[in-house]
């Protein structure tokens, strides 16, 4: 027996408590063509790190209440010339670096993705101006199905998220600002050390 759970009920469930659901292969009016990714993806607890210039990062908890996996393929914001989807990786030597994530951010059906310091995040690569603590910054996420959604994130002071940035050598916009532009020269991850 297959169990079909309507989208509407999924939308109301708390992200953190979400357990894997019994989902049939989507059929009938549950097909992805009827609901866009933008309609089933929500964000909460979002925030963005204050910065005077250079780079910054935004975080939050993304929830996909839909019956299909969705992919965030890109992001943009008036606050930055361009925004990248970043992951943080630890190399065999123990050094932590951040880089663009191949394939974007994948949100499983009915699942969540947490963007947090030390992990995946939205990287604001070239700030148009200072991000002032307390202000709200619009961010637009674009999905694989062509839909997009816009939310605002509040700026707050935060000392962490200072991993070394490793430019993707194949990236079209080759002139990436170096890590030193933000004035942070020491690679560190929050929670590192004693």
């Amino acid at each position, binding site marked *: 027996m297959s169990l079909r759970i309507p989208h509407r009920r999924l939308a109301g469930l708390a992200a953190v408590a979400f357990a894997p659901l019994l989902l049939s292969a989507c059929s009938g009016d549950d097909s992805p063509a009827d609901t866009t990714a933008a309609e089933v993806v929500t964000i909460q*607890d979002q925030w963005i790190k204050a910065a005077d210039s250079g780079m910054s990062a935004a975080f939050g908890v993304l929830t996909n209440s839909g019956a299909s996996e969705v992919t965030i393929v890109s992001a943009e914001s008036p606050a930055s010339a361009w925004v990248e989807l970043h992951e943080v990786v630890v190399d065999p030597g123990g050094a932590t670096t951040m880089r663009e994530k191949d394939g974007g951010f994948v949100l499983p059906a009915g699942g969540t993705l947490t963007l947090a310091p030390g992990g995946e995040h939205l990287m604001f690569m070239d700030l148009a101006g200072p991000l002032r*603590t*307390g202000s709200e910054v619009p961010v637009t996420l674009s999905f694989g199905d062509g839909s997009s959604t816009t939310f605002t994130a*509040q*700026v707050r*002071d935060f000392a962490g998220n200072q991993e070394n940035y490793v430019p993707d050598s194949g990236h079209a916009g080759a002139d990436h600002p170096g890590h030193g532009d933000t004035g942070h020269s020491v690679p560190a991850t*929050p*929670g590192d050390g004693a």
Partner: protein
Amino acid sequence: MRGATADAATPAETVVPFHGEHQAGIATPAQRHAAFVAFDLRPGGSRDDIVGLLKIWTTDAARLTRGEPALADTEPELAARPARLTVTVGFGPAVFTAAGLERQRPAWLGPLPPFGIDRLEPAWSDGDLLVQVCAEEPTTVAHAVRVLSRGVTSLVTVRWTQRGFRDAEPGRTPRNLMGQVDGTVNLTTDAELDRLVWHDGSVTPWLAGGTSLVLRRIAMNLDTWDEIDPAAREFTVGRRLADGAPLTGADEFDEPDFEAVDSYGIPVIPPSSHIARARHTHDGERFLRRGYNYDDAPGPGRISDSGLLFTAYQRDPHAQFLPVQARLAEFDALNEWTTPIGSAVFALPPGVQEPGGYLGQTLFEA
């Protein structure tokens, strides 16, 4: 909301609700540990900056008080024991100036007039914004103070931090570090709080549900207090040391009889005693007290730096607190051993009724 606690397995897990008509931490039964932190706005602070800061504080306070890590909390594990945490925010005069809201500033909001007994230090006085953090566990207080300070460090600086403690049995009056039962005469019923503490909005509409706070740092000279024997101490205060009963009474909560005289015609409670001088002359001179002891590291050559973080919550400090303070400053036997070294007055906005609001919203959207 007074004494609202959830059924919890342990005291560490007990939550005091953040949302409500009034900010928590005022009528809330006093927790064992407190930190009062005053912040100053950095130059150039605008109305939008202050609103943004208050939204950040509201978000984090609502989370921490229910045992959830703050947004961007780098020590999430330290949020796991809410231990009746309350976070109470107040506004100094500069908030109104910076935000262009002088019209909304209460007439009483500003430094108290000076008293002859004062030896106020700027380092312990005034401030643009106040955060009062209280909890049953000191680590909870420390973490909340850290979180609230670091999320807005580009907008404000810490002006002073006053930490205190109290440890009476629940429902009992605590003792101060002079050894006295301290806090007996107080407001206790919801009716008294509604009449004397909570604004009803008739005078200052945005302050409906809010109140004011006077915080005075009272230094104790324990070295010279040591020289005084128990009988002299009791005459100084007007209460027995053993149980806090007035010298004319049998029980702590007996009404003092200031007219009673002994067989020689001498008043049993000296007119110069603390409780005689502090006594309200009418109902309108009453306020809610919620004091904490402090015992900081002594300076060079000293063995103690102790005293009282005296707090008074009332609708109008000028009408309710000042007359009492003026009588004490004019004369109080206890003044020999106590000195006010800090003083600050804040307007405490109403509570955030529901998630989505922010502290001070009624002022900024008035």
